């Protein structure tokens, strides 16, 4: 029964087509069009090439599906005089791709920067191509994952400047995501549309954009599922769920387009650089007051051997993440925290084998004025005593020497 109906619907258009080609009123067949448009030298009135690559069209998705020229160039269906006048109307894809076009009409590409006659700055063909159009699964499609970045960059490296400038988009080409596409051909690595969406692409400050602060955790979590889970379990994630805007999301630490592996020297979270990323908030006095955490974390870290060595590029010393963890950072009061006093021997023991409870009897970030156990700040007292003693000793020495120097000069003058 079903097979019969299917067969029927194939025969009807074929019969129609047969009928129409013989009639003088029939629309042009592909052969009619290509008769002229096969010519590589063919130019429009405006001087633009109007050559159509037959081979490319036949092997395209549309060509394979038997869609004819006039199905898309509908305005030619009624033309009787040839050569026809140009330009033709912009092809309307919504006849078949209704949902995609509906999404596209809500996108920044459609809305922003419209051309005078109500046409979008970017339309379907700018990303998908024209006669040679192919689906995303085809290797030579403009939207095949490995090809998509260069498709977007056709505009975004040159003319289509976003708020953060042209370099910002080009930085993607340095990222670990791009490298995975380019070098290893991993199509599951994030390309433009994985993060930004495709037809419904929106500005990053649009709350509906997948890259908006509100949505970015979920967006990155599409691939990095385990990390999303860890993040949501940590202090940052818990505040993020509460809707606190100042809490860092993925991109605050890892940067946006130029995301690199932590082992990469230029990564924002590279062992010797991560402290500065953390300090952007954790040394910020205004934020510390608002959310009640301690500042001077970087300063006190730099004063330790760990921090000093890291400043000189030594990667084997502890950085923020070595002790505090990273995605699921927890406050010391949390029994599951790596810096909970109970867990410190194990945390410190990663580098200092046999670390005992003694490691917990003190404070790494102790600073004058912070409310820690008084004896934990004794080193500061010792330091101040030293500064005073050194000052006095050197001052006395200098006075002594000055007196001696003047006397010897005087005596020499008398002798001479």
């Amino acid at each position, binding site marked *: 029964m079903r097979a019969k109906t299917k067969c029927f619907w194939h025969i009807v258009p074929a019969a129609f087509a047969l009928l129409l080609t013989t009639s003088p009123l029939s629309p042009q067949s592909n052969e009619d069009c290509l008769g002229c448009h096969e010519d590589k030298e063919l130019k429009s009135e405006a001087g633009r090439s109007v050559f159509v690559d037959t081979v490319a069209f036949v092997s395209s998705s549309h060509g394979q599906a038997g869609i004819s020229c006039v199905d898309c160039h509908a305005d030619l269906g009624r033309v009787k005089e040839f050569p026809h006048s140009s330009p033709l109307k912009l092809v309307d894809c919504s006849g078949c791709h209704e949902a995609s076009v509906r999404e596209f009409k809500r996108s920044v590409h459609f809305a922003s920067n419209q051309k005078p006659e109500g046409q979008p700055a970017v339309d379907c063909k700018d990303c998908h191509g024209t006669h040679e159009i192919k689906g995303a699964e085809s290797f030579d499609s403009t939207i095949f994952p490995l090809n998509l970045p260069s498709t977007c960059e056709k505009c975004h490296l040159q003319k289509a400047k976003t708020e953060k400038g042209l370099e910002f988009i080009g930085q993607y080409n340095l990222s670990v995501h791009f490298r995975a596409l380019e070098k290893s051909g991993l199509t599951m690595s994030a390309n433009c549309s994985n993060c930004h969406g495709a037809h419904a692409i929106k500005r990053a400050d649009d709350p509906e954009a997948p890259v908006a602060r509100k949505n970015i955790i979920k967006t990155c979590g599409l691939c990095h599922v385990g990390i999303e889970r860890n993040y949501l379990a940590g202090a940052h994630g818990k505040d993020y769920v509460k809707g606190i805007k100042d809490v860092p999301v993925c991109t605050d630490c890892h940067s946006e387009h130029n995301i690199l592996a932590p082992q990469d020297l230029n990564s924002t979270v590279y062992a010797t650089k991560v402290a500065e990323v953390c300090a952007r908030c954790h040394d910020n006095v205004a934020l510390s007051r608002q959310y009640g955490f301690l500042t001077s974390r970087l300063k006190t870290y730099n004063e330790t*051997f760990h921090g000093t*060595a890291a*400043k000189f*590029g030594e990667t084997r010393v502890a950085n923020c993440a070595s002790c505090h963890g990273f995605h699921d950072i927890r406050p010391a009061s949390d029994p599951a925290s790596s810096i909970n006093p109970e867990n410190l021997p194990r945390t410190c023991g990663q580098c200092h084998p046999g670390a005992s409870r*003694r490691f917990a*009897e003190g404070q790494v970030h102790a600073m004058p004025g912070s409310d820690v156990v008084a004896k934990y700040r004794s080193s500061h007292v*010792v330091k101040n005593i030293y500064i005073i003693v050194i000052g006095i*000793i050197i001052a006395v020495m*200098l006075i002594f020497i000055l007196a001696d120097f003047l006397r010897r000069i005087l005596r020499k003058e008398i002798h001479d």
Partner: protein
Amino acid sequence: MTSPLLIRDDEIFLRMNLAERIQHWLLISTFLLLIVTGLPLFFYDFKLFKWLLPSGRAFYIRGIVHRTAAVVMIANLVWHLFYTILTKRGRNNLREMLPKAKDVRDAFELFWHNIGLTRFLYRRGIFTRFFRANPYWLFESSPRYGRYNFIEKFEYWALGWGSLVMIASGFFMWQVEISLRFFPLWVHDIFIIVHGYEAILAFLSVIVWHMYNVHLNPEVFPMSKVWLNGRITGKELRLLHPLEYEKIEAERRRALSEEAL
């Protein structure tokens, strides 16, 4: 009877023998190495040190050099200790090096002699009677020193004390795990502070005190050569170490008279 000339002005005396000079050279080189490889940790923001240690690898090597220099310096100190105890010359030096009440007095007298305030007042006719009755307070001449003056003694014992502090704190910084087996973290933090600030004190003292008193002062500028050849002349001995000069003179006179007998 004319007393024979017992010490000629151009006679050569050995103030530092070869062993003492080698000890001093080792001390200088290890001290400088320790300073150069240690200061970057103290002044981690200085561009100079960033340039000196451009990578994590260089920083790592810095640590190795620092600890090697420390071991050599300690070995040198141990050698000096044995040298001081086991040789006659060493024991004699130590005896001369022991601080005495005279050293405090010498420091006081030298300072007021150099300042010359009381002589100035006396010439102006102020407190004349007091100064006539107590000419000591005029500090007319600078104090007379033995083999080692208070300046040298102060340095010697400061170096000894400083070495102890640096070795102890440095050892525990080197062996963090051992340190934290015996001490809580806050005590370990004190070791770190002490090591850094004691080093600054030592560095400044050497630059200011030793460099001026031994090398840069107008009388020997640009430097004393004793640390190189170990020698001083009879004249220098007479001027700089009069008490030692007189002691040697007395010994020779006694030997002469014994010979005459």
